[in-house]
């Protein structure tokens, strides 16, 4: 035994698995990684699952999409369909459409894979959207996560791009009309529109190049960018650690939750299989995009009730809402011999432009208004930030009005109302819908805050009615325990910050505008209940409790 050596004896693995693991570990440093991340704490809440759904949908998209590429042929060459779907037998069509039909009818499991892919795409964009709403309404975009919010916004745009490029690939009648609309929108762009259209389609619409080009964008460029953004997104999640909902024991300096191994990893990993299973169930039972019903693309026919996939709906709806002519005022202008077609350009670009500009800038807007440069890791309950919540609901309402407008014809036929009236109503809602939504949401949020205050100070209603000796009826209120109470009182209620002079002693115009915005944000506010108020409420309640002869219960009304 040479125990005199000061150096530790090198680790010698005893099993085969051990020596294999050791071999890898000595070369990549896995132990250090495991030590860092193996027990990393993740807060748990059902609303944190939306981002996971998006991630898992994307993984499923990659898997099902790869399968589809083995059978899909993105060629616009003309062919006569020879597959087993008899209604289209010998019909002239593009190779792309023919191979999409073959995937559906002649490749075993092909239809299933197509439907999984399409449903996963719809779910991917939807879960991204809901995840972003969750992040917005809980204020998770605040410092230090502003940049990750922007990455999320880029991901939303990329997801819509991935969806649209994929939607067009089967070259069926419906998607062809979608491309036709895109072509019309591109052509409305001043100066470069016509050139852009010719460059995209390789000449006149529809040409023979577009499917192949969209295919490369769809299976290579866009997914690569999405993957890159996901890597950046998750990297920042690791750097920031996850946010947590407010509650006893949680503050901006800690992170409370389950360790990655085993509980969180098991839940998150298991959830992947659940998402996959649900998508498989949808693909099994619900037909999506039955391209065989539409026929090959032909510029002449179109079916009534055409709809884009849901995430493009808001742009299509905006196109529908914009009037081309009001009385005799035309929105198409000829200026210096050039055509400016605002009836297409404005609805195609302006609403989406406003939504994404405000979305990207919002963290900085709120930071400027509140002058708040602290890190926030504890989320806001939406009611505790009434103005932000109201802004979010107003924006969401605006989006939904446009989205509903994309189905204006279906609304008219299903509810037996005039299509023109539906359009007029939606045009009205386009302007006043967000205003109403803002006012209503803000009032509801303030009311919920007052309710929280009431419960924190006077306890929860038990439903037990007691008659006092002098004849008065009261409802018995049960006091909250300190943990439940802290959840209701442990929040900040910022007050407006008046305009402050800068270092030269001057109150700038910008600062005055900020102060005005700050007042608009925070002038209606409900302060959290304080211990002194609770004391006062208790004293009052105790008085009644004695009168009621209730020794243990603290009463109040």
């Amino acid at each position, binding site marked *: 035994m040479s125990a005199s050596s000061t150096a530790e004896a090198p680790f010698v693995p005893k099993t085969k698995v051990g020596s294999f693991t050791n071999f890898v570990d000595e070369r990549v440093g896995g132990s250090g990684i495991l030590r860092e991340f193996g027990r990393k704490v993740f807060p748990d809440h059902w609303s944190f699952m939306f981002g996971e759904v998006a991630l898992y949908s994307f993984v499923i998209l990659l898997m099902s999409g790869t399968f589809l590429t083995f059978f899909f042929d993105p060629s616009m060459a003309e062919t006569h369909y020879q597959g087993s779907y008899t209604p289209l037998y010998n019909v002239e069509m593009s190779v792309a459409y023919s191979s999409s039909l073959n995937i559906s009818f002649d490749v075993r499991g092909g239809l299933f894979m197509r439907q999984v892919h399409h449903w996963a795409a719809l779910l991917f964009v939807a879960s991204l959207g809901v995840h972003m709403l969750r992040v917005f309404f809980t204020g998770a975009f605040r410092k230090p996560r502003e940049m990750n919010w922007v990455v999320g916004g880029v991901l939303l745009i990329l997801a819509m791009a991935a969806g649209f490029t994929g939607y067009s690939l089967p070259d069926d009648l419906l998607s062809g009309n979608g491309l036709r609309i895109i072509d019309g929108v591109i052509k409305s762009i001043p100066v470069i529109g016509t050139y852009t259209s010719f460059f995209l389609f390789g000449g006149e*619409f529809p040409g023979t190049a577009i499917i192949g080009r969209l295919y490369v964008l769809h299976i290579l460029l866009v997914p690569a960018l999405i993957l890159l953004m996901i890597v950046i997104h998750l990297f920042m999640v690791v750097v920031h650690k996850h946010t947590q909902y407010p509650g006893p024991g949680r503050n*901006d300096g800690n992170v*409370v939750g*389950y360790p990655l191994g085993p509980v969180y990893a098991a839940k998150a990993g298991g959830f992947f299989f659940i998402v996959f299973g649900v998508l498989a169930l949808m693909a099994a039972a619900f037909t999506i995009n039955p391209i065989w019903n539409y026929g090959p693309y032909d510029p002449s026919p179109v079916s009534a009730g055409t709809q884009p996939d849901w995430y493009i709906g808001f742009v299509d709806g905006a196109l529908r809402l914009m009037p081309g002519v009001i009385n005799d005022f035309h929105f198409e202008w000829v200026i210096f011999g050039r055509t400016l077609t605002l009836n297409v350009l404005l609805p195609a670009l302006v609403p989406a432009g406003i939504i994404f500009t405000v979305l990207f800038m919002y963290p900085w807007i709120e930071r400027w208004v509140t*002058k708040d440069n602290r890190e926030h890791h504890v989320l806001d309950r939406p009611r505790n930030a009434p103005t932000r919540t109201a802004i979010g609901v107003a924006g969401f309402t605006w989006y939904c009005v446009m989205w509903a407008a994309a189905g204006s014809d279906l609304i008219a036929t299903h509810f037996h109302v005039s299509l023109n009236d539906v359009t007029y109503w939606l045009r009205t809602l386009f302007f006043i819908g967000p205003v109403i939504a803002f006012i209503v949401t803000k009032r509801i949020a303030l009311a919920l805050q007052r309710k929280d205050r009431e419960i924190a100070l006077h306890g929860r209603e038990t439903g037990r009615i007691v008659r006092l000796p002098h004849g008065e009826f009261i409802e018995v209120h049960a006091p909250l325990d300190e943990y439940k109470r802290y959840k209701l009182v*442990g929040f900040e209620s910022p007050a407006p910050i008046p305009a402050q002079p800068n270092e030269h002693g001057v109150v700038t115009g910008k600062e005055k505008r900020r102060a005005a915005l700050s007042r608009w944000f925070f002038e209606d506010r409900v302060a959290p209940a304080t211990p002194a108020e609770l004391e006062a409420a208790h004293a009052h309640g105790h008085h009644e409790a004695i009168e009621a002869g209730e020794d243990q219960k603290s009463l109040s009304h």
Partner: protein
Amino acid sequence: MGNHSDGSPNHSGTVATAGQNEVEKFQDPGLPPHRLRLADTDPVAAKRAERQVAILFGTSVIGTLVFLVAYFAIDLGDDTSIATIRTQNLLLGLGTAFAMLGIGTGIVHWAKALMPDHEVSEERHAIRTEEDRQAAVRIVDDIVDETGIKRRPLIRNTLLGAVALAPLPALAIFGDLGPRPDNALAHTMWAPEGDKLKRLTRDPDGTPIKASDVTIGSAFHVIPEGLNELHEGKLNEKAKAVVLLMRLDPDSLNPSEGRENWSYNGIVAYSKICTHVGCPVALYEQQTHHLLCPCHQSTFDLTQECKVIFGPASRPLPQLPIAVDAEGYLVATSDFREPVGPSYWERDEHERLINS
């Protein structure tokens, strides 16, 4: 929040605390006491949860088997009916769903019922420490210093110039993505070839239409003669040339000056491509004489030369001037007198070109 242990003080000027101070706030009581689950205290319940997880995993195995059986037992031959494909799709999907949901719900149930559910608290650390910042600044200074880029502006400026110009070829090389538009959008197949006027033919079979076939109230989907014989660019030409042909009571048409001869006996032909964003205006409301685009609901009034009466389009549908040839077939007497389809930047220029 009541207590900030992230080290950032509540600056009085920058954070609205609304006259509150720490004393007036509730103190954080800390994490609530942990509550044990049934499976933590009752071995029977734990055993039951264990069996449930195993059953869920077993369901997954059954799902996988269902998938394999559906894949191999149902063969898609040449004479497969839609019903068979639907059945196979359903079984493959259900098999996958059970295979995945079995694993997923099993693992989640295992985690929730049997794995420790103690919430733990971990300190957050500063994303950037002041020490790191200073070290990084020193490193950057050293790097910049070693390159000497500040001392040698010639190198800096030539490099900036080179890097600024270098991407230009990357832009230029995409120049052949498409041809220049030129006047392609100004013309359609309807232009007469020499003296030969193009007949109006039925879409899609291409048979010519006699004026006598067109009864009052009827509508035809029309393509130009010779379209089906094209080998290249057939869809491109069709996308510009498709026409809707309708016959109304001649008195209900109100042709403007110069268009009196564009119709024949109440028969009128209008471009089917919407002037909004180019969908086919495929719906003809016979009673009201309206044409409706199903994509965005632009509505055009045939009795007012297809003026826009509702919806997002801003321009009337272009009219195709028609007449009858010696054999009684409908022909186009000229191309459209304006570009068809959605508006574009050069559109007005093209319209002037056509009419000059």
